[in-house]
């Protein structure tokens, strides 16, 4: 009985050549189709940088100003393109600086491969200069990680890394390579990995589960879809649209699902979750069948689980079996790849429409418009709102831009009000809520999709967490548009302090620098807007710019984001003020 084949590889290997481990790393990246990687050199990764110098015509290395920026740029690259992003760093502090980005990629299922240099193998465990146990440190936040101490292991391990990062539910992989393995010569050949015996990335979709799901949907009077990023990761946008339209089901999205169906689609009923739209949150507790597609019932989506959709039958389309019944007990779980499962579901569905049910969403939208949206988008007070900046961006980009937001109030406003015509257009840190994500992620996104308008939208707090990446923008001349919505506060924390801590604004007021001067210091065109009458032209000028452009908009200091489901409350208890 032969059970010792642990990996399946492509049949054809490249012809063997005697090269160093560090050259092999570059050759592996080229074999995997990598054109750009983000990183920062240092002692333990120098042999690889030496090879990058030799291969600079074939592979473009972007020097970020901090390793965290490299991971976020790799994430932005991956999120807009669907390809694997690559980040590189040296050992010790270089490697630990990657961790925030890796954790972000893990919780948001983003395929990235991080390569770190490590001290020579004979020094491992000796507290050598710049030694950290990065495999140990990264274990809980990686889909897979591995340390390489021999050059001959490099091709197979990197092939596995790319296969694991992008297959099934994607995620980050870290490969740590000792310096002696980088120098060592060996006979290099490459075969892509196509299977690992202990790893089943895509569970089979059962016909019974599809039929059970179809039966529930076909008899539903008030069906509702909530889709997440699984639709985008599975490239199932067309299949989702076909199902929504055929079965006439109102469909809402999680923050990471945004843009899979255009915001203008008549059955797109908006965002669910803590700062989502009023109607889909409220009606989650009115629907009779809730169809969750590629989403994981995060606590920011569900609020109090004890009162979440208790009246509804729940169908969960999911690629990761560990998500099924994790937070919400499902009636029917349809495992598998969303593109395959949704395509198989379509012929089983009856063509239907639910006009009265859809009207309920419209009626609640009208209430939200009167109480919230009107004041956000068409304010009559003197101070500028974040919402009206988004409105101007929508006008100038016609809803075709990719919006890369940071974390906080501006992020919720961006997700609520940005128009999305194109999928993969909402790039934001969802699960981890990583302030500082936006600017470097926008760099990666613009490099992956140079033909698209990429707009980084940050608050004054998060912007300053990775502001040094302006240096990367200056050096690479990547034409990202940078918007900072400046309320001189850590606005979301301040909002919670106002609502739940009796306005004790502990450490949330920011004394900010001259942002325009800083941008200009990096030779980036920059403007500051304080008055409403200047906003439209400033946004227009920014969008018209062929180069990077920085726009600071001074907004009302103490505006709040509504609607809001207070932490731990039921979706039914969503507040409009």
């Amino acid at each position, binding site marked *: 009985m032969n*059970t010792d084949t642990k990996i399946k590889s492509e049949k054809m290997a490249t012809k063997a050549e005697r090269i160093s481990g560090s050259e092999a790393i570059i050759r592996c990246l080229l074999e995997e189709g990598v054109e750009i990687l983000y990183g920062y050199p240092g002692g333990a990764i120098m042999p690889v940088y030496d090879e990058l110098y030799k291969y600079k015509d074939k592979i473009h290395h972007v020097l970020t100003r901090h390793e965290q920026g490299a991971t976020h740029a790799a994430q932005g690259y991956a999120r807009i393109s669907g390809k694997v992003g690559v980040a590189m760093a040296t050992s010790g502090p270089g490697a630990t600086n990657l961790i925030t980005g890796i954790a972000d990629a893990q919780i948001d299922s983003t395929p990235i491969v991080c390569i770190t240099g490590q001290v020579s193998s004979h020094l491992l465990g000796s507290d050598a200069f710049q030694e950290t146990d990065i495999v140990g440190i990264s274990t809980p936040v990686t889909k897979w990680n591995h340390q390489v101490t021999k050059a001959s292991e490099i091709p197979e391990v990197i092939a596995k890394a790319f296969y694991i990062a992008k297959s099934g539910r994607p995620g980050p992989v870290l490969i740590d390579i000792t310096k002696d393995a980088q120098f060592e010569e060996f006979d290099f050949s490459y075969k892509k990995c196509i299977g690992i015996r202990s790893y089943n990335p895509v569970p089979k979709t059962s016909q019974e589960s599809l039929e059970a799901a179809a039966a529930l949907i076909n008899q539903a009077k008030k069906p509702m879809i909530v889709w997440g990023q699984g639709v985008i990761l599975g490239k199932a946008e067309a299949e989702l649209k076909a199902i929504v339209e055929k079965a006439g089901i109102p469909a809402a999205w999680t923050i990471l699902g945004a843009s899979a169906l255009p915001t203008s689609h008549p059955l797109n009923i908006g965002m669910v979750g803590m700062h989502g739209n009023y109607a889909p949150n409220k009606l989650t507790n009115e629907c009779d069948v809730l169809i969750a597609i590629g989403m994981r019932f995060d606590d920011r989506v569900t609020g109090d689980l004890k009162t979440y959709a208790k009246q509804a039958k729940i169908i969960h389309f999911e690629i990761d*079996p560990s998500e099924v019944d994790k937070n919400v007990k499902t009636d029917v779980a349809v495992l598998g790849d969303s593109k395959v499962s949704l395509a198989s579901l379509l012929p089983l569905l009856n063509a239907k429409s639910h006009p009265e049910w859809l009207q309920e969403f419209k009626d609640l939208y009208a209430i939200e418009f009167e109480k919230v949206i009107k004041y956000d988008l068409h304010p009559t007070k003197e101070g500028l709102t974040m919402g009206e900046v988004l409105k101007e961006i929508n006008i100038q980009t016609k809803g075709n831009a990719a919006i890369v937001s940071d974390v906080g109030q501006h992020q919720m406003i961006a997700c609520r009000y940005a128009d999305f015509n194109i999928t993969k257009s909402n790039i934001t840190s969802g699960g981890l809520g990583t302030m500082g994500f936006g600017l470097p992620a926008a760099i990666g996104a613009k490099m992956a999709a140079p033909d698209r308008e990429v707009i980084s939208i940050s608050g004054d707090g998060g912007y300053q967490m990775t502001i040094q990446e302006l240096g990367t923008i200056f050096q690479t001349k990547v034409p990202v548009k940078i918007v900072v919505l400046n309320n001189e506060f850590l606005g979301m924390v301040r909002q919670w302090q106002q609502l739940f801590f009796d306005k004790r604004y502990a450490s949330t007021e920011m004394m900010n620098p001259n942002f325009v001067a800083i941008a200009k210091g990096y030779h980036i065109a920059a403007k500051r807007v304080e008055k409403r009458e200047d906003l439209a032209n400033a946004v227009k000028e920014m969008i018209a710019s062929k180069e990077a452009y920085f726009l600071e908009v001074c907004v009302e200091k103490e505006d709040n984001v509504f609607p809001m489901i207070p932490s731990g409350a039921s979706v039914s208890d969503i507040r409009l003020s």
Partner: protein
Amino acid sequence: MNEEIKTFTISIYTENNIGLLNRISAIFQRRHMNIESLTTSQSEIEGVNRFVIVVNMTEVQAIKIVKQIEKQVETIRAYYHTDDETIYTESCMFKIKSALLFEEPQIQNIIKESDTRIVTVNKEFFVLEKSGRRHEIEALRRDLNVFGIMQFVRSGRIAVTKDEMKITEMLIAFNNQ
């Protein structure tokens, strides 16, 4: 679903890779759960390791944890079982002063009655070994403690399941794909 806290034996078939122990124990750690015992060894399949982990938790937790363990790339399969569904045992060793064997004749009776094996005897000390259920080992420890124990050590639980584990079939299927 049962919310009562019970003892579960988690059996995990894995590749034999550095770091996997960390990855598996982290799944318990992040849920703030204590591992009662953990044993790892070669399994019935060449090159495949088996973890046996004992944890007190609810069945709801057991289901979620087993799925999260299975999600790890190098986990082949993971299962959870109640005590009724497994055959399990622990083993223990005692190091005791040799003089006591002659001064306290009762010790010889304890050894005989408890089905304990004498591993070695020399002038200074003798070593006892016993396999059995936790309560049997605890009873033996209490009985011998009266006389003084130089060293005591107990292993984690090892267990086989009453139902079949179709790991070999899975691996053959992968090879034939």
